[in-house]
C-alpha cells in the first residue's frame, strides 16, 4: 500500500499479531500484577518498606516487561521472511519499523502506565505520586522500547540471542530506570518531579528521532548475515 496506507496496515498487522483475542490484553495486565506480587513475597509485607520501594519496584517491573517483549519484537518476522519483504518494500525502513515500536510501547508501556496507579495503591504508594508514576512510565517505556528494539534488531539473526540482548540493552536501560524511579521518588518526598520528566521526554525525542536509523541499519545487517 502506498504512503500512509502501508504504515497503517503494518500497525494493524502488529496489533493483530499481539492482540488476536481481547483476552491477550488482559493477560498482559495479569503479567504485571503477578510480577508485582513477587516483590512483597520476596521483600516482606511491611507497608512502610513496600511504600518506600514502590517506585523502584514498579519501574523494575516495567523494565523487565519491556525487555521480555522486545526480545521477540522482530524474531518471528525475521524467521519467516517477513523482514526480507519489509526490506524490499519501497517505503523507507526508517518509518516501517515505527509500527513495531509503537505496538511494543503500547503493550509494555502505555498499558502498564495506565494501570500503574492501581499497583501503586497496592504497594502503598502515596496518592500524590501517582501522576508522576504514570507520566514517568509513559515516557520512559517509550525510550526503553526504542533502545530495546535496537538490541533486538542486532541479535535477531543469532540463534541464541536470549541472554545476549539483555546484556546489550540493560546498560542503556539504566539511566532511564534512574530518572524514572527518581521522578516518582521526588513526588513521594514532595519535591518537584518535572525536571526528571523533562529529561525523560528529551531522551524520548532523541530515541525516536535517531533510534529507527540504528534499527534499520541493524536489520539490514541481520538479514545479510
Amino acid at each position, binding site marked *: 500500500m502506498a504512503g500512509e496506507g502501508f504504515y497503517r496496515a503494518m500497525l494493524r498487522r502488529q496489533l493483530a499479531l499481539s492482540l488476536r*483475542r481481547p*483476552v491477550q490484553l*488482559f*493477560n498482559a495486565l*495479569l503479567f504485571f*500484577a*503477578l510480577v508485582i*506480587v513477587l516483590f*512483597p*513475597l520476596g521483600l*516482606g*509485607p*511491611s*507497608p512502610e518498606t*513496600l511504600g518506600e520501594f514502590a517506585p523502584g519496584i514498579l519501574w523494575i517491573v516495567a523494565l523487565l516487561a519491556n525487555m521480555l517483549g522486545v526480545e521477540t519484537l522482530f524474531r518471528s518476522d525475521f524467521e519467516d521472511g517477513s523482514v526480507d519483504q519489509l526490506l524490499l518494500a519501497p517505503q523507507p525502513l526508517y518509518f516501517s519499523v515505527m509500527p513495531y515500536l509503537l505496538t511494543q510501547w503500547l503493550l509494555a508501556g502505555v498499558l502498564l502506565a495506565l494501570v500503574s496507579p492501581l499497583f501503586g*495503591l*497496592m504497594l*502503598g504508594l502515596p496518592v500524590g505520586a501517582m501522576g508522576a508514576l504514570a507520566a514517568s512510565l509513559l515516557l520512559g517505556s517509550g525510550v526503553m522500547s526504542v533502545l530495546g528494539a535496537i538490541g533486538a534488531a542486532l541479535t535477531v539473526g543469532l540463534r541464541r540471542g536470549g541472554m545476549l540482548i539483555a546484556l546489550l540493552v540493560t546498560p542503556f536501560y539504566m539511566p532511564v530506570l534512574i530518572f524514572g524511579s527518581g521522578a516518582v521518588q521526588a513526588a513521594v518526598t514532595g519535591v518537584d518531579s518535572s525536571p526528571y520528566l523533562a529529561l525523560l521526554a528529551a531522551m524520548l525525542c532523541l530515541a525516536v528521532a535517531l533510534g529507527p536509523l540504528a534499527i534499520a541499519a541493524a536489520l539490514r545487517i541481520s538479514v545479510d548475515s
Partner: protein
Amino acid sequence: MYFPGPSFERSETPSIIAAAMWTFFHKLGSPPWLYTISGQILRWLLPAALLALVVGMCWGLLFTAPDFRQGNSYRIIYIHVPAAVVALGGYYIMAIAGAISLIWKMKMADIAMLAAAPVGAALTFIALVTGSIWGKPTWGTWWVWDARITSMLILLFLYLGVMALYEAYDNKVAASRACAVLALVGTVNIPIIYKSVDWWYSLHQPASIKFTGGSTIDPSMLYPLLLCIVAFYALFACALMANMRVTILDRERRTGWVRRLVEES
C-alpha cells in the same frame, strides 16, 4: 494411556458398591441425562438459594446490632465472608472435576471443571473487592499484604490461569485436557501455597493487623452468616449447572437429542 490411574472396567474385585458407582458414573457421563437432571435440580435449587440469601441478608443487615468497634461497616461481612469461603471451595470442586476427567476420561467432568472456573473467579473477585472496601474504614488503606488476602489474590490468579489457558487453545478438546492437567497440578500445589503464605506472613509480620480471630463473632451475627454461606454454596451450584448446560448444548449441538430439544421449544 498417558496418565496411569485406576479404571473401573479393569477392577479385579467388582463389588456391588463399585458397580453401583459405575452405573452412576456412566449416567453422569451421559449428556442428555445430565442436561435433564440438572434442569430439574435448578428448578427448585435456584429459588431456594435466592430465598436463603434474601433471608440471611435481611437478618444480618436489619436485625443485628452494629458492631461496637466498627459500627455498621462490618455488615459487608455477609457478602465478603461467604464469597471468600465459597471461592476457596470452588477451586477444589474444579480441580477434582479436572482429575476425574483426566483419569476416567469423563466428558462431563471437564465440562464441570470449565464451568467452575469463571464462577470461582468471580467469587474470588467479589471477596477481594468487598475486602478492600471493608479495609478502607477498618485499616485506613485499601490494601495490606495480609496472609489471607495474599493467598486470595493468588487464588484469583490460579482461576484466571485455567480460564486463560482454555481461551488460548484453538482446539477445545485439547484445551480442556490441558486445563485438567493444570488443575491437577494445582490440587497438589494449593495446600503448599496456602501454608507458605501463612508462614511468610508470620515470618515477617509479628501480628500488627489482625483479622483472623473467627471466635470473636457474636452468635447473633454468626447464624445469618452461616445461612449466607449456605446460600452462596447453593448459588455456586446453580451457576455451575447453568454454565454446564450451556456448554453441553454447544458441544452436542449436532446430536439428535439437542435437535429434538430445539424442535420441541
